[in-house]
Protein backbone atom coordinates (compact mmCIF):
# COMPACT_ATOMS: atom_id res chain seq x y z
CA UNK A 1 0.00 0.00 0.00
CA UNK A 2 1.02 3.54 -0.74
CA UNK A 3 2.16 5.35 2.40
CA UNK A 4 1.84 9.10 2.66
CA UNK A 5 3.38 10.98 5.53
CA UNK A 6 1.59 14.23 6.39
CA UNK A 7 2.91 14.66 9.91
CA UNK A 8 6.12 16.61 9.39
CA UNK A 9 5.44 18.88 12.36
CA UNK A 10 5.82 15.80 14.55
CA UNK A 11 9.07 14.69 12.99
CA UNK A 12 10.70 14.54 9.58
CA UNK A 13 12.48 11.75 7.74
CA UNK A 14 16.26 11.99 7.91
CA UNK A 15 17.73 13.41 4.73
CA UNK A 16 20.11 11.20 2.81
CA UNK A 17 22.84 13.85 2.93
CA UNK A 18 22.42 14.15 6.69
CA UNK A 19 22.71 10.42 7.17
CA UNK A 20 25.86 10.42 5.03
CA UNK A 21 27.42 13.16 7.15
CA UNK A 22 26.60 11.26 10.33
CA UNK A 23 27.89 7.97 8.97
CA UNK A 24 31.12 9.63 8.07
CA UNK A 25 31.56 10.67 11.70
CA UNK A 26 30.73 7.26 13.09
CA UNK A 27 33.14 5.63 10.66
CA UNK A 28 36.05 8.05 10.66
CA UNK A 29 36.02 10.22 13.76
CA UNK A 30 36.77 8.45 17.00
CA UNK A 31 37.93 11.25 19.27
CA UNK A 32 36.33 13.03 22.18
CA UNK A 33 36.10 16.73 21.29
CA UNK A 34 37.57 17.56 24.71
CA UNK A 35 40.74 15.51 24.18
CA UNK A 36 43.85 17.42 23.21
CA UNK A 37 45.41 14.78 20.94
CA UNK A 38 44.94 14.52 17.22
CA UNK A 39 41.79 12.41 17.50
CA UNK A 40 40.21 14.87 19.87
CA UNK A 41 41.16 17.87 17.79
CA UNK A 42 39.57 16.31 14.70
CA UNK A 43 36.36 15.68 16.66
CA UNK A 44 36.45 19.27 17.94
CA UNK A 45 36.91 20.57 14.41
CA UNK A 46 33.80 18.68 13.25
CA UNK A 47 31.82 19.80 16.27
CA UNK A 48 32.66 23.43 15.65
CA UNK A 49 31.81 23.09 11.95
CA UNK A 50 28.37 21.83 12.96
CA UNK A 51 27.98 24.71 15.38
CA UNK A 52 28.89 27.19 12.66
CA UNK A 53 26.28 25.76 10.30
CA UNK A 54 23.53 26.03 12.92
CA UNK A 55 24.64 29.54 13.90
CA UNK A 56 24.66 30.74 10.30
CA UNK A 57 21.13 29.48 9.78
CA UNK A 58 19.79 31.93 12.34
CA UNK A 59 22.31 34.73 11.91
CA UNK A 60 24.05 34.05 15.22
CA UNK A 61 27.69 33.71 16.19
CA UNK A 62 28.92 30.14 16.76
CA UNK A 63 29.87 30.87 20.37
CA UNK A 64 26.23 31.75 21.06
CA UNK A 65 25.03 28.22 20.24
CA UNK A 66 24.70 25.58 22.98
CA UNK A 67 23.86 22.08 21.78
CA UNK A 68 21.31 20.14 23.80
CA UNK A 69 19.64 16.77 23.75
CA UNK A 70 16.69 18.09 21.73
CA UNK A 71 14.12 20.85 21.57
CA UNK A 72 12.49 20.09 24.89
CA UNK A 73 15.80 20.45 26.67
CA UNK A 74 16.56 23.69 24.83
CA UNK A 75 13.20 25.12 25.95
CA UNK A 76 13.82 24.04 29.53
CA UNK A 77 17.35 25.41 29.55
CA UNK A 78 16.02 28.73 28.30
CA UNK A 79 13.05 29.04 30.62
CA UNK A 80 14.44 27.50 33.79
CA UNK A 81 17.95 28.69 33.06
CA UNK A 82 17.05 32.36 32.74
CA UNK A 83 14.54 32.19 35.60
CA UNK A 84 17.04 30.83 38.11
CA UNK A 85 19.88 33.02 36.88
CA UNK A 86 17.76 36.15 37.31
CA UNK A 87 15.99 35.31 40.53
CA UNK A 88 17.64 38.15 42.39
CA UNK A 89 16.19 40.60 39.85
CA UNK A 90 12.62 39.36 39.80
CA UNK A 91 10.29 36.41 39.68
CA UNK A 92 7.83 37.11 36.89
CA UNK A 93 7.68 35.31 33.53
CA UNK A 94 5.44 36.06 30.56
CA UNK A 95 4.57 33.33 28.10
CA UNK A 96 1.57 32.39 25.98
CA UNK A 97 -1.23 29.88 26.42
CA UNK A 98 -0.34 28.11 23.17
CA UNK A 99 3.30 27.23 23.83
CA UNK A 100 4.58 23.71 23.40
CA UNK A 101 4.37 21.63 26.59
CA UNK A 102 8.17 21.93 26.85
CA UNK A 103 7.71 25.61 27.74
CA UNK A 104 4.33 25.37 29.47
CA UNK A 105 5.27 22.54 31.80
CA UNK A 106 8.58 24.25 32.64
CA UNK A 107 6.60 27.37 33.54
CA UNK A 108 4.16 25.43 35.68
CA UNK A 109 7.10 23.86 37.46
CA UNK A 110 8.57 27.31 38.09
CA UNK A 111 5.25 28.44 39.54
CA UNK A 112 5.63 25.70 42.14
CA UNK A 113 9.12 27.04 42.79
CA UNK A 114 7.66 30.42 43.67
CA UNK A 115 7.87 32.23 40.34
CA UNK A 116 4.76 33.86 38.96
CA UNK A 117 3.77 33.32 35.34
CA UNK A 118 1.43 35.20 33.02
CA UNK A 119 -0.01 33.02 30.27
CA UNK A 120 -1.08 35.42 27.55
CA UNK A 121 -4.31 34.55 25.77
CA UNK A 122 -4.46 34.42 21.98
CA UNK A 123 -7.01 35.69 19.48
CA UNK A 124 -9.43 33.32 17.77
CA UNK A 125 -6.92 33.24 14.96
CA UNK A 126 -4.25 32.01 17.33
CA UNK A 127 -2.17 35.17 17.65
CA UNK A 128 -0.52 36.64 20.71
CA UNK A 129 -1.15 40.38 21.01
CA UNK A 130 2.04 42.45 21.40
CA UNK A 131 0.15 45.24 23.16
CA UNK A 132 -1.32 42.80 25.68
CA UNK A 133 2.16 41.46 26.18
CA UNK A 134 3.53 44.92 26.81
CA UNK A 135 0.83 45.58 29.40
CA UNK A 136 1.77 42.38 31.19
CA UNK A 137 5.36 43.49 31.73
CA UNK A 138 6.14 44.37 35.37
CA UNK A 139 9.28 45.71 36.98
CA UNK A 140 10.01 42.18 38.21
CA UNK A 141 9.54 40.50 34.80
CA UNK A 142 12.68 38.50 34.02
CA UNK A 143 11.70 36.57 30.90
CA UNK A 144 9.33 36.66 27.94
CA UNK A 145 8.88 33.38 26.07
CA UNK A 146 6.69 33.32 22.97
CA UNK A 147 7.03 30.74 20.22
CA UNK A 148 7.90 31.66 16.64
CA UNK A 149 5.28 29.41 15.08
CA UNK A 150 2.77 27.07 16.63
CA UNK A 151 3.17 23.36 16.00
CA UNK A 152 -0.56 22.59 15.85
CA UNK A 153 -1.92 25.44 13.75
CA UNK A 154 1.27 26.72 12.12
CA UNK A 155 0.34 30.28 13.14
CA UNK A 156 3.37 32.57 13.03
CA UNK A 157 3.58 34.93 15.97
CA UNK A 158 4.53 38.62 15.76
CA UNK A 159 7.95 37.82 17.13
CA UNK A 160 9.81 40.85 15.77
CA UNK A 161 7.28 43.20 17.38
CA UNK A 162 7.57 41.34 20.66
CA UNK A 163 11.34 41.46 20.35
CA UNK A 164 11.23 45.23 20.02
CA UNK A 165 9.05 45.58 23.08
CA UNK A 166 11.26 43.22 25.07
CA UNK A 167 14.35 45.15 24.10
CA UNK A 168 12.92 48.55 24.95
CA UNK A 169 11.75 47.21 28.32
CA UNK A 170 15.06 45.37 28.84
CA UNK A 171 13.50 41.96 29.39
CA UNK A 172 15.24 38.89 27.92
CA UNK A 173 13.16 37.34 25.14
CA UNK A 174 13.12 33.63 24.34
CA UNK A 175 11.42 32.12 21.33
CA UNK A 176 10.82 28.46 20.60
CA UNK A 177 11.58 28.54 16.87
CA UNK A 178 11.54 24.76 16.50
CA UNK A 179 8.68 24.75 14.00
CA UNK A 180 10.01 27.77 12.14
CA UNK A 181 13.42 26.34 11.32
CA UNK A 182 13.60 25.35 7.67
CA UNK A 183 10.11 26.66 6.94
CA UNK A 184 10.53 30.41 7.33
CA UNK A 185 13.67 32.56 7.47
CA UNK A 186 14.99 33.03 11.01
CA UNK A 187 17.28 35.80 12.17
CA UNK A 188 18.03 36.47 15.80
CA UNK A 189 18.80 40.09 14.95
CA UNK A 190 15.69 40.82 12.90
CA UNK A 191 13.50 39.00 15.38
CA UNK A 192 15.16 40.70 18.33
CA UNK A 193 15.49 37.52 20.36
CA UNK A 194 17.94 36.77 23.14
CA UNK A 195 17.35 33.02 23.27
CA UNK A 196 16.09 30.71 20.55
CA UNK A 197 15.31 26.98 20.74
CA UNK A 198 15.93 24.71 17.78
CA UNK A 199 15.54 20.99 17.21
CA UNK A 200 17.21 18.70 14.67
CA UNK A 201 14.45 16.27 13.84
CA UNK A 202 11.99 18.86 12.56
CA UNK A 203 14.37 19.78 9.72
CA UNK A 204 15.21 16.33 8.36
CA UNK A 205 17.99 15.96 10.92
CA UNK A 206 18.39 13.43 13.73
CA UNK A 207 16.17 13.14 16.81
CA UNK A 208 17.62 13.84 20.24
CA UNK A 209 19.73 16.82 19.26
CA UNK A 210 18.77 20.45 19.58
CA UNK A 211 20.31 23.81 20.25
CA UNK A 212 19.73 26.90 22.29
CA UNK A 213 20.95 30.22 20.99
CA UNK A 214 21.99 32.40 23.92
CA UNK A 215 22.87 35.98 23.09
CA UNK A 216 26.18 37.09 24.53
CA UNK A 217 25.56 38.67 27.93
CA UNK A 218 22.39 36.73 28.76
CA UNK A 219 22.80 34.70 31.93
CA UNK A 220 21.55 31.13 32.01
CA UNK A 221 21.89 28.65 34.84
CA UNK A 222 22.54 25.10 33.58
CA UNK A 223 20.05 22.29 34.19
CA UNK A 224 22.79 19.75 34.90
CA UNK A 225 26.34 19.93 36.25
CA UNK A 226 29.53 18.30 35.07
CA UNK A 227 32.40 19.27 32.82
CA UNK A 228 33.07 22.39 30.83
CA UNK A 229 31.33 21.26 27.64
CA UNK A 230 29.19 23.79 25.82
CA UNK A 231 30.58 26.55 28.02
CA UNK A 232 29.32 24.63 31.07
CA UNK A 233 25.74 25.31 30.01
CA UNK A 234 25.27 21.73 28.94
CA UNK A 235 27.92 19.48 30.39
CA UNK A 236 28.60 16.02 28.98
CA UNK A 237 30.50 14.64 26.01
CA UNK A 238 28.82 16.01 22.93
CA UNK A 239 26.64 13.96 20.60
CA UNK A 240 29.07 14.57 17.77
CA UNK A 241 27.36 12.67 14.97
CA UNK A 242 24.02 14.14 15.97
CA UNK A 243 25.41 17.65 16.01
CA UNK A 244 27.12 17.20 12.65
CA UNK A 245 23.86 15.83 11.25
CA UNK A 246 21.93 18.74 12.72
CA UNK A 247 24.47 21.16 11.23
CA UNK A 248 24.16 19.61 7.82
CA UNK A 249 20.36 19.57 8.07
CA UNK A 250 20.25 23.28 8.97
CA UNK A 251 22.58 24.12 6.10
CA UNK A 252 20.39 22.18 3.66
CA UNK A 253 17.24 23.78 5.08
CA UNK A 254 18.68 27.20 4.24
CA UNK A 255 19.55 26.21 0.70
CA UNK A 256 16.14 26.03 -0.96
CA UNK A 257 14.11 27.58 1.76
CA UNK A 258 12.02 29.89 -0.36
CA UNK A 259 11.34 27.68 -3.34
CA UNK A 260 10.47 24.76 -1.07
CA UNK A 261 8.23 26.99 1.05
CA UNK A 262 6.42 28.12 -2.11
CA UNK A 263 6.00 24.56 -3.29
CA UNK A 264 4.62 23.43 0.06
CA UNK A 265 2.33 26.42 0.32
CA UNK A 266 0.87 25.57 -3.06
CA UNK A 267 0.31 21.94 -2.10
CA UNK A 268 -1.11 22.90 1.29
CA UNK A 269 -3.52 25.40 -0.23
CA UNK A 270 -4.55 22.84 -2.82
CA UNK A 271 -5.22 20.33 -0.06
CA UNK A 272 -7.36 22.90 1.71
CA UNK A 273 -9.34 23.95 -1.34
CA UNK A 274 -9.96 20.38 -2.52
CA UNK A 275 -11.19 19.42 0.92
CA UNK A 276 -13.48 22.43 1.25
CA UNK A 277 -14.84 21.84 -2.25
CA UNK A 278 -15.65 18.23 -1.56
CA UNK A 279 -16.52 18.15 2.12
CA UNK A 280 -19.11 20.54 3.58
CA UNK A 281 -18.85 22.00 7.07
CA UNK A 282 -15.09 22.17 7.42
CA UNK A 283 -13.45 25.01 9.35
CA UNK A 284 -9.84 26.07 9.23
CA UNK A 285 -8.04 26.77 12.49
CA UNK A 286 -5.48 29.57 12.57
CA UNK A 287 -4.91 32.91 10.85
CA UNK A 288 -5.05 32.09 7.11
CA UNK A 289 -2.30 34.46 5.95
CA UNK A 290 0.02 33.99 8.90
CA UNK A 291 0.81 30.33 8.89
CA UNK A 292 3.79 28.13 8.20
CA UNK A 293 3.63 27.15 4.54
CA UNK A 294 3.31 23.44 5.30
CA UNK A 295 0.62 23.34 8.00
CA UNK A 296 -3.12 22.91 7.65
CA UNK A 297 -5.33 22.47 10.69
CA UNK A 298 -8.97 21.70 9.91
CA UNK A 299 -12.01 20.92 12.02
CA UNK A 300 -14.56 18.55 10.53
CA UNK A 301 -17.92 19.26 12.09
CA UNK A 302 -19.85 16.41 13.70
CA UNK A 303 -16.91 13.98 13.89
CA UNK A 304 -14.00 13.28 16.17
CA UNK A 305 -10.42 13.50 14.97
CA UNK A 306 -9.14 10.08 15.91
CA UNK A 307 -11.80 8.40 13.81
CA UNK A 308 -10.60 10.40 10.83
CA UNK A 309 -6.99 9.45 11.52
CA UNK A 310 -7.84 5.76 11.77
CA UNK A 311 -9.80 5.95 8.55
CA UNK A 312 -6.92 7.70 6.79
CA UNK A 313 -4.40 5.30 8.22
CA UNK A 314 -6.25 2.36 6.76
CA UNK A 315 -5.60 3.94 3.37
CA UNK A 316 -1.96 4.66 4.12
CA UNK A 317 -2.18 8.33 5.09
CA UNK A 318 -0.63 9.55 8.36
CA UNK A 319 -1.79 12.83 9.94
CA UNK A 320 -2.35 14.12 13.49
CA UNK A 321 -5.23 15.33 15.64
CA UNK A 322 -5.82 17.61 18.60
CA UNK A 323 -8.62 15.45 19.96
CA UNK A 324 -8.60 14.60 23.66
CA UNK A 325 -9.22 10.93 23.15
CA UNK A 326 -6.00 10.56 21.22
CA UNK A 327 -3.75 12.35 23.63
CA UNK A 328 -5.05 10.36 26.58
CA UNK A 329 -6.09 13.57 28.26
CA UNK A 330 -9.63 14.59 28.97
CA UNK A 331 -9.52 17.98 27.30
CA UNK A 332 -9.00 18.80 23.64
CA UNK A 333 -5.87 20.57 22.43
CA UNK A 334 -4.82 23.45 24.69
CA UNK A 335 -3.98 25.44 21.58
CA UNK A 336 -7.44 25.18 20.03
CA UNK A 337 -9.06 25.74 23.42
CA UNK A 338 -7.05 28.94 23.85
CA UNK A 339 -8.34 30.03 20.44
CA UNK A 340 -11.85 29.43 21.77
CA UNK A 341 -12.56 26.80 19.19
CA UNK A 342 -15.76 25.09 20.31
CA UNK A 343 -15.07 21.79 22.09
CA UNK A 344 -16.74 19.58 19.49
CA UNK A 345 -14.82 21.29 16.70
CA UNK A 346 -11.55 21.00 18.59
CA UNK A 347 -12.24 17.28 18.96
CA UNK A 348 -12.77 17.08 15.23
CA UNK A 349 -9.51 18.76 14.33
CA UNK A 350 -6.93 17.20 12.08
CA UNK A 351 -3.47 18.57 11.40
CA UNK A 352 -1.89 17.93 8.04
CA UNK A 353 1.76 18.97 7.96
CA UNK A 354 3.49 18.58 4.64
CA UNK A 355 7.13 18.09 3.79
CA UNK A 356 9.83 17.59 1.22
CA UNK A 357 8.80 14.22 -0.15
CA UNK A 358 5.10 15.07 -0.61
CA UNK A 359 3.79 15.51 -4.13
CA UNK A 360 0.58 16.80 -5.68
CA UNK A 361 -0.37 13.19 -6.29
CA UNK A 362 -0.12 12.51 -2.54
CA UNK A 363 -2.38 15.46 -1.83
CA UNK A 364 -5.03 14.42 -4.31
CA UNK A 365 -4.91 10.84 -3.07
CA UNK A 366 -5.35 12.08 0.50
CA UNK A 367 -8.46 14.04 -0.44
CA UNK A 368 -9.86 11.05 -2.30
CA UNK A 369 -9.57 8.83 0.76
CA UNK A 370 -10.61 11.52 3.21
CA UNK A 371 -13.99 12.24 1.58
CA UNK A 372 -15.55 8.80 2.27
CA UNK A 373 -13.94 8.58 5.71
CA UNK A 374 -15.59 11.80 6.87
CA UNK A 375 -18.87 10.88 5.21
CA UNK A 376 -18.99 7.51 6.96
CA UNK A 377 -18.18 8.99 10.37
CA UNK A 378 -20.74 11.71 9.95
CA UNK A 379 -23.44 9.24 9.14
CA UNK A 380 -22.63 7.63 12.45
CA UNK A 381 -22.67 10.87 14.43
CA UNK A 382 -25.57 11.89 16.69
CA UNK A 383 -24.88 15.54 15.82
CA UNK A 384 -25.05 15.15 12.09
CA UNK A 385 -27.94 16.55 10.13
CA UNK A 386 -27.40 16.20 6.38
CA UNK A 387 -29.79 19.08 5.76
CA UNK A 388 -27.18 21.42 7.16
CA UNK A 389 -24.73 20.50 4.44
CA UNK A 390 -26.32 22.70 1.88
CA UNK A 391 -26.32 25.76 4.09
CA UNK A 392 -23.26 27.94 4.00
CA UNK A 393 -21.39 28.97 7.10
Amino acid at each position, binding site marked *: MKKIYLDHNATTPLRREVLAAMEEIYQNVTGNPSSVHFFGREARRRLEAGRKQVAETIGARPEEIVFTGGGTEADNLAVQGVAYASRSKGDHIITSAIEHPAVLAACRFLEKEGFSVTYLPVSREGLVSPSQLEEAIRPETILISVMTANNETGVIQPVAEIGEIARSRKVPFHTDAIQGLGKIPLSVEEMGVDLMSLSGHKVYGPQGVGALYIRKGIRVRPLTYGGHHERSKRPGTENLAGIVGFGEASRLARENLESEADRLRMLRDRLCSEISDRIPRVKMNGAPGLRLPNTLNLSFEYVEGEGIL*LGLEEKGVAAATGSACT*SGELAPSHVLSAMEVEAALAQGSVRFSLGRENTLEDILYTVDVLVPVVKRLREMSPFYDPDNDTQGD
Partner: protein
Amino acid sequence: MSGETDYSEKVMDHFHNPRNVGKLEDPDGVGTVGNPVCGDVMKLYIKVNDGRIADARFQTFGCGAAIATSSMVTELARGKTLDEAIAISNKEVAAALDGLPPAKMHCSMLGEEALKKAIEDYRKKRGSGEAEG
Protein backbone atom coordinates in the same frame (compact mmCIF):
# COMPACT_ATOMS: atom_id res chain seq x y z
CA MET B 1 -0.73 14.77 19.39
CA SER B 2 0.62 11.27 19.74
CA GLY B 3 -1.62 8.59 18.28
CA GLU B 4 -2.94 5.68 20.27
CA THR B 5 -3.37 3.15 17.53
CA ASP B 6 -2.41 -0.14 19.13
CA TYR B 7 -5.98 -1.35 18.89
CA SER B 8 -6.80 -5.04 18.59
CA GLU B 9 -7.95 -6.41 15.27
CA LYS B 10 -11.41 -6.80 16.72
CA VAL B 11 -11.56 -3.12 17.67
CA MET B 12 -10.46 -2.15 14.18
CA ASP B 13 -13.06 -4.46 12.68
CA HIS B 14 -15.83 -2.89 14.75
CA PHE B 15 -14.49 0.57 13.93
CA HIS B 16 -14.36 0.01 10.19
CA ASN B 17 -17.50 -2.15 10.02
CA PRO B 18 -19.63 -1.10 12.95
CA ARG B 19 -22.75 -3.17 13.61
CA ASN B 20 -26.13 -1.58 14.29
CA VAL B 21 -25.34 1.99 13.32
CA GLY B 22 -28.13 4.51 13.09
CA LYS B 23 -31.33 5.69 14.68
CA LEU B 24 -34.29 3.53 15.58
CA GLU B 25 -37.65 4.90 14.57
CA ASP B 26 -40.00 4.88 17.57
CA PRO B 27 -37.48 3.57 20.06
CA ASP B 28 -38.71 2.23 23.38
CA GLY B 29 -35.75 3.74 25.18
CA VAL B 30 -32.95 6.18 24.39
CA GLY B 31 -29.77 6.83 26.35
CA THR B 32 -27.39 9.69 25.59
CA VAL B 33 -24.08 9.97 27.42
CA GLY B 34 -20.82 11.86 27.23
CA ASN B 35 -20.02 15.33 26.10
CA PRO B 36 -17.76 16.68 23.44
CA VAL B 37 -15.56 18.54 25.91
CA CYS B 38 -14.29 15.23 27.27
CA GLY B 39 -14.23 13.44 23.96
CA ASP B 40 -16.98 11.05 23.08
CA VAL B 41 -20.77 11.22 22.83
CA MET B 42 -22.98 8.20 22.35
CA LYS B 43 -26.67 7.88 21.73
CA LEU B 44 -28.14 4.39 22.10
CA TYR B 45 -31.64 3.36 21.03
CA ILE B 46 -33.44 0.17 22.09
CA LYS B 47 -36.55 -1.69 21.09
CA VAL B 48 -37.98 -4.00 23.75
CA ASN B 49 -40.08 -7.07 23.12
CA ASP B 50 -41.29 -9.50 25.80
CA GLY B 51 -38.83 -8.05 28.28
CA ARG B 52 -35.91 -8.60 25.92
CA ILE B 53 -33.90 -6.18 23.83
CA ALA B 54 -35.19 -6.85 20.35
CA ASP B 55 -33.07 -4.23 18.65
CA ALA B 56 -30.31 -1.83 19.64
CA ARG B 57 -28.78 0.89 17.49
CA PHE B 58 -26.31 3.65 18.11
CA GLN B 59 -24.97 6.96 16.92
CA THR B 60 -21.55 7.96 18.19
CA PHE B 61 -19.30 10.98 17.97
CA GLY B 62 -16.00 9.69 19.15
CA CYS B 63 -12.69 8.00 18.81
CA GLY B 64 -12.02 4.52 17.46
CA ALA B 65 -12.53 2.95 20.87
CA ALA B 66 -15.84 4.76 21.38
CA ILE B 67 -17.18 3.61 18.02
CA ALA B 68 -16.02 0.03 18.47
CA THR B 69 -17.46 -0.02 22.00
CA SER B 70 -20.79 1.29 20.77
CA SER B 71 -20.91 -1.37 18.11
CA MET B 72 -20.00 -4.15 20.53
CA VAL B 73 -22.39 -3.10 23.27
CA THR B 74 -25.31 -3.14 20.87
CA GLU B 75 -24.26 -6.62 19.74
CA LEU B 76 -24.02 -7.84 23.34
CA ALA B 77 -27.34 -6.28 24.32
CA ARG B 78 -29.43 -7.71 21.54
CA GLY B 79 -31.55 -10.66 22.65
CA LYS B 80 -30.76 -10.17 26.32
CA THR B 81 -33.38 -9.62 29.01
CA LEU B 82 -33.39 -6.13 30.47
CA ASP B 83 -31.84 -7.39 33.71
CA GLU B 84 -29.09 -9.16 31.83
CA ALA B 85 -28.45 -6.16 29.64
CA ILE B 86 -28.32 -3.68 32.48
CA ALA B 87 -25.60 -5.82 34.07
CA ILE B 88 -23.25 -5.54 31.08
CA SER B 89 -20.10 -3.81 32.26
CA ASN B 90 -17.53 -1.83 30.33
CA LYS B 91 -14.96 -4.49 31.19
CA GLU B 92 -17.11 -7.10 29.48
CA VAL B 93 -17.43 -4.92 26.42
CA ALA B 94 -13.70 -4.29 26.33
CA ALA B 95 -13.00 -8.01 26.79
CA ALA B 96 -15.34 -8.84 23.91
CA LEU B 97 -13.22 -6.50 21.80
CA ASP B 98 -10.05 -8.38 22.85
CA GLY B 99 -9.13 -5.50 25.12
CA LEU B 100 -8.56 -1.78 24.80
CA PRO B 101 -5.40 0.26 25.42
CA PRO B 102 -5.40 1.46 29.07
CA ALA B 103 -5.78 5.12 28.02
CA LYS B 104 -8.97 4.14 26.20
CA MET B 105 -10.78 2.26 28.98
CA HIS B 106 -12.69 5.42 29.90
CA CYS B 107 -14.16 5.49 26.39
CA SER B 108 -15.66 2.05 26.96
CA MET B 109 -17.63 3.39 29.93
CA LEU B 110 -19.76 5.15 27.39
CA GLY B 111 -21.27 1.95 26.03
CA GLU B 112 -22.17 0.62 29.45
CA GLU B 113 -23.67 3.91 30.57
CA ALA B 114 -25.63 4.56 27.39
CA LEU B 115 -27.21 1.12 27.55
CA LYS B 116 -28.13 1.54 31.22
CA LYS B 117 -29.65 4.93 30.48
CA ALA B 118 -31.66 3.59 27.55
CA ILE B 119 -33.07 0.81 29.73
CA GLU B 120 -33.85 3.26 32.53
CA ASP B 121 -35.54 5.49 29.98
CA TYR B 122 -37.64 2.57 28.83
CA ARG B 123 -38.58 1.63 32.40
CA LYS B 124 -39.45 5.19 33.26
CA LYS B 125 -41.71 5.50 30.26
CA ARG B 126 -43.44 2.23 31.12
CA GLY B 127 -43.72 3.22 34.74
CA SER B 128 -45.47 6.38 33.71
CA GLY B 129 -48.21 4.35 32.08
CA GLU B 130 -47.23 3.97 28.45
CA ALA B 131 -47.70 0.26 28.27
CA GLU B 132 -45.20 -1.27 25.96
CA GLY B 133 -44.87 -4.76 24.50
